[in-house]
């Protein structure tokens, strides 16, 4: 009925996205991390400002650190004054975070991407329910809203607790040969399979 990508084209594209994201941003792809930064934008905003101030005033920051070190440990604690400044500079540059607004843009552009695809393929339809099947499973109206609200809560809480979701643990974590990610992926996939099979059983 739907004209979705076949498995190998979809797989190659998913892998390609994970690789390109890593190369362009220098970070591993992970959507729940973006969620955390957007949900706590106030704190992130303060962090971004501090980092920005630090990078703009690197000589001042370095001198302040140098002065504090000398006051605490004396002149002998500083081996070569010239090297110290450059070391501090590089560490400040490395720790500079991605601003939270970039994460917000990342999430909002996913919505736009979904919209573009739906318009382009003729799937766009403004409607309240997810699908007829989902409606049948949860019941209509407020029941469905309640299921989605509690389910969404578990998605939000669970991904933060596990430290990743299907992109952070599933795609980039597994591809980084991270044991905890492979475990997490196996667990959330099998839980979802178990719940869905149970739903199917109860529907019959």
């Amino acid at each position, binding site marked *: 009925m739907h004209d*979705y*990508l*076949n*498995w190998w084209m*979809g*797989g190659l*594209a*998913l*892998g390609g996205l994970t690789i390109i994201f*890593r190369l362009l941003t220098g970070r591993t*792809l992970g*959507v*729940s*991390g973006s*969620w*955390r930064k957007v*949900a706590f934008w106030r704190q992130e905003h303060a962090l971004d400002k501090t980092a920005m101030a630090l990078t703009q005033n690197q000589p001042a920051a370095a001198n302040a650190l140098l002065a504090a070190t000398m006051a605490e440990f004396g002149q002998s604690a500083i081996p070569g004054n010239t090297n110290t400044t450059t070391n501090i500079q590089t560490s400040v540059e490395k720790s500079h975070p991605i601003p939270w607004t*970039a994460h917000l*843009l990342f*999430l909002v*552009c*996913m919505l*736009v*991407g*979904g*919209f*573009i*695809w739906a318009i382009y393929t003729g799937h*766009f339809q403004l409607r309240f329910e*997810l*699908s007829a099947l989902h409606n049948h499973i949860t019941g209509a109206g407020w029941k*469905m809203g309640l*299921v*989605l*609200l509690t*389910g*969404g*809560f*578990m*998605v*939000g809480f*669970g991904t933060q607790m*596990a*430290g990743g979701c299907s*992109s952070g643990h599933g*795609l980039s974590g597994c*591809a*980084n*040969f991270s044991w*905890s*990610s492979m*475990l997490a992926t196996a*667990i*959330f*996939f099998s839980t*979802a*399979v*178990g*719940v*869905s099979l149970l739903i199917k059983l109860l529907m019959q």
Partner: protein
Amino acid sequence: MKNNLSIHLIYGLMGLIMGILLSAIGFADYDEMFNMFTFTDTRMFYAFALGVMVAALAFSLFHITGLLKFEPKLFHPGTIPGSILFGYGWAVCGACPSVVFIQLGQGKLAAVMTLLGIYAGVRTYKTLHARYFGWDSGSCGI
């Protein structure tokens, strides 16, 4: 350091591509998700597995050539219970943290409820973590 504008452009472009790609594979379609989880149609399982394998191959090459390092995630007491909660939520909402936006973009307004739920979940977890759990979650790498 990359400048601010280029970081925003890159993240925006990546979001756009991801939105289109996940839609085109079918990850934002509840029926397709349900068919995957009940093994009625294993197409998306294979797509996901192939995606991981392709990325793993590339990351291995990067690692060997010294271009980039592996970045493994930390195992901590929250990994297992968190994954179970996420698995349940994924099955009943058909949405992971990215797909909820894509569903909204496709015009499925019910995803607003999922969105509110995820927001509440993220906020609640951080508060509980700071007050009660407090284990090292490698917070830089989430």
